[in-house]
């Protein structure tokens, strides 16, 4: 109960570094980031312009870290960061941004606006201006171990089902395994087929893998709400488990921000490099492909497209791998008009799906994805993020579209040669 404006302002001060200072110094208010943001293109609302979302951080930078700002501060001329501002900005920063980073790709002066919004969230959260839904999910993540409240027994139940259905063993807590698989709550609760698919593929590939019963949750609410302390705590759990089991590689599952959290933010959050590798499941599968460990049979003839999850493609660098893999089982793969690093977000990442308040807007901005799909009219969509998948299903239903959604890993597993 100790969130306060002072704490928020201090958090913002901590977030300013030379990159942020360079970004703010370079912004010319050209407005091109708005055209890159689906929250603007689909709502037409100028408050959704990405660069304006970082106003609290900008004010702190200006008044604390620039000569003119320092002088202005002396005479009380600067625009202040206060609760009124933060209240007004809460929706802009959390509800109208998925941290998809498309703005960062088009900014003509090269500003990583998504990074700045992520940093702004640190101040917002510390000042007590995070949305209810995200606070709830974060609390569950820390206390229960999963933002959706999934506990170990629930996972064990799903694993039992999988083992029964396939006759394959899902190894738990195996010390010295090569791979340690993480799962997102959504996969455990909504898509247990994923576990089945992994069991099949990894068994066929003949590699040793395991799931830790102490740290199986891949998602990280701390990243989404913007509290590094909590994010670090959640990362630490995985690091402890991986070190305990002495695995070589930790696998991030089909979840965008989970990959971002463990692969790119993880070591920086806990302040030291990992002594294991972190890979996305698609990277592992592509390695298997290269090593000839994947034997595929039968090709899909239907028109398939791939929805790039922002954190995996644009923010994660896993862009070629899904395409390599899809081409193994598809004869009719078609790209969306904007694709790869320039894809459009589904509209529910970055904590937006956890924030009930944003339900309406996330469905509205889905229009962007709908337009993209209308243009290429695919028979099915393949993706690699459970969160995207759930929201895409929601969106397609909302817009009365009947396009099946497939997980890349699961579809690949279906095409495994015996």
């Amino acid at each position, binding site marked *: 109960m100790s969130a306060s404006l002072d*704490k928020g302002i201090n*958090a913002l001060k901590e977030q300013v*570094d030379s990159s942020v200072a360079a970004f703010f110094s370079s912004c010319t208010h050209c407005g091109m980031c708005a055209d890159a943001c689906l929250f603007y293109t689909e709502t037409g609302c100028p408050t959704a312009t990405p660069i304006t979302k970082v106003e609290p951080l900008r004010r702190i930078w200006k008044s604390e870290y620039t000569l003119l700002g320092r002088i202005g501060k002396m005479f009380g001329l600067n625009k202040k960061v206060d609760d009124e501002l933060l209240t007004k900005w809460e929706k802009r920063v959390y509800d109208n941004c998925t941290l998809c980073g498309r703005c960062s790709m088009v900014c003509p002066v090269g500003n990583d606006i998504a990074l700045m919004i992520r940093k702004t969230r640190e101040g917002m*959260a510390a000042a007590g201006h995070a949305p209810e839904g995200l606070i709830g999910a*974060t609390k569950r993540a820390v206390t229960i171990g999963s933002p959706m409240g999934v506990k170990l027994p629930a996972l064990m139940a799903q694993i039992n089902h999988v083992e029964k259905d396939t006759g394959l063993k899902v190894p738990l807590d195996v010390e010295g395994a090569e791979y340690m698989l993480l799962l997102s709550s959504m996969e455990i609760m909504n898509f247990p087929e994923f576990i089945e698919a992994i069991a099949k593929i990894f068994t066929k590939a003949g590699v040793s893998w395991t799931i830790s019963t102490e740290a199986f949750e891949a998602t990280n609410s701390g990243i989404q709400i913007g509290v590094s302390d909590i994010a670090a705590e959640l990362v630490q759990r995985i690091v402890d488990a991986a070190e305990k089991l002495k695995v070589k590689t930790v696998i991030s599952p089909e979840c965008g921000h989970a990959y971002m959290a463990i692969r790119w933010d993880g070591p920086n959050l806990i302040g030291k490099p990992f002594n294991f590798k972190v890979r996305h499941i698609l990277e592992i599968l592509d390695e298997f492909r290269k090593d000839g460990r994947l034997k595929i049979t039968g090709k899909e003839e239907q028109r398939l497209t791939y929805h790039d999850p922002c954190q995996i493609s644009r923010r994660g660098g896993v862009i070629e791998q899904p395409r390599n893999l899809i081409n193994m089982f598809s004869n009719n793969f078609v790209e969306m008009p904007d694709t790869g690093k320039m894809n459009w977000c589904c509209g529910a990442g970055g904590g937006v799906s956890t924030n009930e308040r944003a339900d309406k807007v996330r469905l509205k901005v889905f229009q962007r994805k709908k337009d993209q799909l209308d243009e290429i009219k695919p028979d099915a969509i393949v993706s690699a993020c459970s969160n995207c998948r759930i929201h895409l299903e929601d969106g397609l239903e909302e817009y009365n579209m009947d396009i099946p959604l497939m997980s890349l890993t699961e579809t690949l597993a279906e095409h495994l040669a015996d």
Partner: protein
Amino acid sequence: MTNNSNKEKTLGEVMRSRGVSRRSFLKFCAATASMMAMSPAMIPKIAHALESARRPSVIWLSFQECTGCTESLTRAHTATIESLIFDSISLDYHHTLQAASGHAAEEAREAAMNENWGKYILVVDGSIPTDNPGYSTIAGISNLDMFMQTAAGAAAIISVGTCAAYGGIPHADPNPTGAYSVYDVIKKFSNNQLDGISSATLAKAGEGSVVSKPIISVPGCPPIPVVITGVLTHFLTFGTIPELDHLGRPKAFYGQSIHDRCYRRPFYDKGLFAETFDDEGAKKGWCLYKLGCKGPTTYNACATTKWNDGTSFPIESGHPCLGCSEPDFWDGGGFYKALSMPTENITQTAIYTAAGAAAVGVALGAMNKSKKNNAVAAHNKTTIDDLEK
């Protein structure tokens, strides 16, 4: 005075009495119109006006000057015409040209003033020192006193040369004698900013309301001789002063810049410049802008009137215009520095500034860093209990 009788005659009569034919007179008028940049359609009007004009008295005062202006005038190669004009005026005082000296000379001046009070033309060359009257005196009279006394009774004042028009070389930084132009001296007088002026002079100046005298500036170092005679002729012809620009210069001569009338202008427009005095560009007669030509900011008639009997003008001879007919041309940062160049040593300024700023920047950067470190140190770990207020 012997020429008193002449003064009552018209110019036409004077000329005819000297056997100048009407044809010669017409030629003179045509030359005058050409010289004054008037339309040839004006020739008959000039002829008519000059026919009936009466010879005015002219008093020429030389103060802090080099006699270059007088030299220019007397070396004028259009000798016939010049002498004709000087024959038509009564040059009652000019201490370089007159035969009389000493007291006789000063008496001549006073006599001319008394006889023609309110009607004579006062020509001034040289600037007037205001700092200490002792810097320049004539017959024991300070320049300032002599000028104010003479100006009081003038019909018009013609400031000949850059020194009289703007202060010129004596006025150039640091201006040790407190030299000022004719215009500035009168302005200072009207603002009561003049010391060292005698009370008698003051009374006289006030009486003649010096402040409201028309002043025609004919700047140049030296001025083009025909400009001097042109102004005199205009006064003779029309009895009025010619149309002047904002600096008091006759528009007929100073209406366009050297650059506008320069035959090398097409090279400027094409971007063809001489870079040095002996390169190919210089030999090909390209634009001299880069060599410091002040043509674009200098208003004068050199490019069309030319010098030495229309032989050429400085640019035609391969040298950039110095801007001698503009104010402060000595203090303009150097004759060979192009107009778009800064006059100070900016490189040095920038280097010193950079050194100083680097130190300040490092200090400010260190302050930024320590502020950030303080913020990090003040970090209060956020737990799930701290997410709400």
